[in-house]
């Protein structure tokens, strides 16, 4: 089970939830659940082949990570989805 924190601009696609809990062992389980339950949200964060869209970043327990389907998750993991801004 992992807690997914949803970024404010995308909450309307997920019934205004700020976070959701998903039963999972690896990242692909989360992607499959999101695809099934929240297809519009999925379209906003993934492009083809479930590659993250350019401005989307994922933190796993406060650490920036690269998406890999095989990534194993622990029961108390927290995933934060961030809609990044252009800056610098």
């Amino acid at each position, binding site marked *: 089970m992992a807690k997914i924190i949803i970024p404010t601009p995308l909450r309307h696609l997920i019934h205004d939830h700020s976070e959701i809990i998903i039963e999972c062992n690896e990242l692909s389980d989360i992607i499959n659940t999101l695809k099934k339950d929240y297809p519009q949200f999925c379209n906003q964060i993934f492009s083809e082949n479930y590659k993250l869209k350019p401005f989307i970043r994922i933190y796993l327990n406060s650490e920036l990570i690269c998406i890999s389907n095989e990534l194993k998750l622990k029961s108390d993991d927290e995933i934060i989805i*961030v809609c990044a801004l252009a800056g*610098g």
Partner: protein
Amino acid sequence: MNNAIIVFTGTSIDLKSGKKILGDLALFFPPIKRGDISEITRKYGQPGVIVIIDGFYYNNLSVSLTEIREAIKLGWKFYGASSMGALRAVEANIIGMKGFGKVYRWLKLFNVCDDDEVAQVVNPQTCQPLSLSMIEIRYIVRHLRLNKLITRQLSTVILNKMKALYFPERTEPNLIRLLKENSFLSSEFININCKKIIQLNNIKNMDAVMLLEKIKKKYLYECETL
């Protein structure tokens, strides 16, 4: 000096490190966007100093030359470095904005006024960078070439490939992947050393620290002419 010193930053140098250098001498604001300068000039009647290090692009309108010109006419002094600050300093140099640091000198030397060289994606909450800018990549690749870790030819290939990417995709993992695919260096060496090399060659951060140190010397100790 009693007039306000305003610093727009957060990405090239984090707030904590910036405050460590300037303490109470300056007021820190998040990266600059259009409209911020007029708000500052309205709020602080007496002209002071505006230091631009970072800014926002694309999702927000970026700070314009017109805004800088209007504030300079009112008596405000402008300094820029690192990122958006260096870029605007190149453009506004002729009207009195001063630029500092390697990024500024590089942009000026090659007459680059292209946002794409300094743009990166940032975390909207913390302003922490989430990708590398092209200018940082150039500096890292130069370091690898000068230390004979990659050839001149390979450095050109890597720079061209990174430049061809959309700027949010210019990430550390993508740079490391390109190095692994193309260089004679072992994956082990790259894994161990590249992150370190990338961190040590953070040119935007070096320039930001240098400018804030200069501001401190000038306005706190009044011992250096900027």
